């Protein structure tokens, strides 16, 4: 998808004014937060597990080269292949080559953010191969021609009516012409249609939640079971994963799995958690004959050892999205690319550059709720601030903004002048407000007064009163 992060201001304004989107978002706002809260409440060890999860991932990053090599060696031992790709273009070509070798006409897909990142669906279609999303949310947005708006609930911006409209529009070729009014019926229709797609597919492409170095296993987690049908039925299974998905052992993976579902949906464990290790074994009654892992860098190795190193601990649970007041106000599309919410605000400039994505780390009140819920304890606000520092130093922010800030900072360091100006401002604003106690319009304060009044100051500054030995409250 062509990024539109540059247009974040326009996107977000449209989003807050989009009644339909706001209606859809209202379905997710309370639910995810409450469910995670309940799940955390039921596991006394949760905070200690967050520490362990963070430490496991931190250890992996420090030794990422070793773990990648170990993983590759185990995959190859089990009869699979690993493909290392520096860029999205390389990954696309690699996947296309594998699909061509498999004579693929149709490809089923489990949900993969890497797949979105490299725009694999458009590329396959352009090359005569039909990709079919099987996660219900991804299937819905594929029909709508839209990108996902949430990491784990891609169609969260769609209402049931939207889904019913999409199905009746696109399912006629399957003999389905009735518009369905119940969620149950919609799910059943999708199940029926996609079942045949699963069976017919030549290649299945999934993402990976984790890559286990100890065994060369790929972990795919779903609630629907589409990840399993995608990987087991076709003759070829391709996994797309970014380099930092490595985890050392099965035990380490278990610790992370205990954090993942609870953080994401408030479930104790997702319905289907599958460890896949290579292709079909001699004697196996089902399974793919070819097993490929396409590992993508796309700028991540360059982030190691720098200010954004800790971001690579992310396990894509979306807890930060679910708890972010900005995401909850505008949804995922306003961010303009694949990754949204707080992790998207740090990831997107990393992968696309600060010029394209500069708005994202700026559009935060630094409330810190993301960091408070991140199972990997990633210091997201700090990293957003680092982006702001790069913008300021790199002069990406508007010259007027930088000038005003420098001027203000100078004034703040000249207390005598600052105090006089504060006292003046207090008096002036008070006079302007008259007896109303507030101002509805104020030059240079358009950003504030467009939707808020500005309460009037009391009229004199605290320090002026203190210096004059005025002490309201004494003797009361």
């Amino acid at each position: 998808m062509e990024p539109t992060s540059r247009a974040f201001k326009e996107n977000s304004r449209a989003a807050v004014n989009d009644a339909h989107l706001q209606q859809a978002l209202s379905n997710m706002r309370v639910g995810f937060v409450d469910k995670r809260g309940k799940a955390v409440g039921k596991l006394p060890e949760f905070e200690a597990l967050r520490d362990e999860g963070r430490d496991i991932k931190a250890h992996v990053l420090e030794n990422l080269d070793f773990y990648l090599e170990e993983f590759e060696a185990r995959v190859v031992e089990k009869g699979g292949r690993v493909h290392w790709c520096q860029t999205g273009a390389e990954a696309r070509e690699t996947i296309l080559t594998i699909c061509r070798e498999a004579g693929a006409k149709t490809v089923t897909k489990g949900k993969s953010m890497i797949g979105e990142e490299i725009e694999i669906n458009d590329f396959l279609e352009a090359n005569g191969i039909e990709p079919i999303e099987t996660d219900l949310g991804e299937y819905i947005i594929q029909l709508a021609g839209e990108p996902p708006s949430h990491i784990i609930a891609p169609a969260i911006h769609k209402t049931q009516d939207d889904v019913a409209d999409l199905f009746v529009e696109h399912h006629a070729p399957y003999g389905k012409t009735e518009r369905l009014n119940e969620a149950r019926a919609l799910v059943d229709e999708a199940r029926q249609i996609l079942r045949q797609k699963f069976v017919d597919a030549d290649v299945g492409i999934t993402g990976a939640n984790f890559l286990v170095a100890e065994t060369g296993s790929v972990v795919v987690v779903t609630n629907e079971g589409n990840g399993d049908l995608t990987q087991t039925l076709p003759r070829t299974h391709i996994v797309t994963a970014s380099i930092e998905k490595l985890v050392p052992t099965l035990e380490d993976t278990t610790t992370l799995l205990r954090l993942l579902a609870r953080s994401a949906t408030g479930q104790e464990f997702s319905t289907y958690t599958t460890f896949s290790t290579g292709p079909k074994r001699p004697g196996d009654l089902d399974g793919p004959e070819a097993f490929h892992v396409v590992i993508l860098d796309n700028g991540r190795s360059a982030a190691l050892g720098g200010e954004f190193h800790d971001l690579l601990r992310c396990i894509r649970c979306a807890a930060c999205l679910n708890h972010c007041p900005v995401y909850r106000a505008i949804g995922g599309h306003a961010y303009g690319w694949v990754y949204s919410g707080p992790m998207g605000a740090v990831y997107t400039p990393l992968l696309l550059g600060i010029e394209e994505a500069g708005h994202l780390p700026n559009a935060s009140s630094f409330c810190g709720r993301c960091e408070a819920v991140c199972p990997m304890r990633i210091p997201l606000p700090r990293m957003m601030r680092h982006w702001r520092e790069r913008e300021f130093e790199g002069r990406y922010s508007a010259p007027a903004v930088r000038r005003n800030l420098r001027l203000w900072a100078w004034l703040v360091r000249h207390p005598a002048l600052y105090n006089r100006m504060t006292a003046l401002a207090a008096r002036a604003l008070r006079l302007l407000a008259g007896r109303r106690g507030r101002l509805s319009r104020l030059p240079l304060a358009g950003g504030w007064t467009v939707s808020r009044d500005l309460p009037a100051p009391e009229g004199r500054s605290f320090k002026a009163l203190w210096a004059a030995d005025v002490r309201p409250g004494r003797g009361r």
Partner: protein
Amino acid sequence: MNDSRAAILATIAKRLGRGPLDEAARKSLRARLRGHAPGLIPARAQLPHDEQLALFQEQAEAVATTVERLDANSDVPGAVADYLARHNLPSEVVMAPDPSLDGYPWGDKPTLQIRRGVTAGDDLVAVTGAFAGIAETGSLMMLSGPDTPTTLNYLPDNHIVVLRAEQVMGTYEEGWILLRSAGAMPRNVNFVTGPSRTADIEQKTQLGAHGPRRLHIVIVGSAQEDK
């Protein structure tokens, strides 16, 4: 593409402020892998076996799995037949070729038509065993193999699992220990926690998205005293 491999590995090392790891470091990391030490294991399932069985059932039922406790092997065929009748399902199942299922007196229910093998997707009911039950989350641990096709866990609408009481353990870590002692990783280890579901339509949960609509577990036997 080998250039990409070399480039990625080189960038990683450089960004971490070092060259490739030396042999001492690699040895230490390999030892960590071989040691596969568990991390913090929640206390929840660290219970006497009879309580683990109860926890398993409670956790499984909390995610819409149905669970039945049976005393004896001879109860199993009847339990399966009754389940089909209760849900108005035809008296036909596809059953994994798993030898662990051979020992039940299926002949006691001659009207129950059993086909041992794989499914092409037309079967309504699959009967399988499992490698283990994990009490912590009410999950089944299932391995792929010559007698245990994975697709039986996913394609049929209804999945009945025959689990022996002694197969129920507390935690995932115990499952990994058992698996390692049984041999190498199979192609698939499936952890199944309830029937298939989705909340992609307005965040309301619907069962039976792509996998089974129903998961039924019959647990045969009683708690082990000295587990």
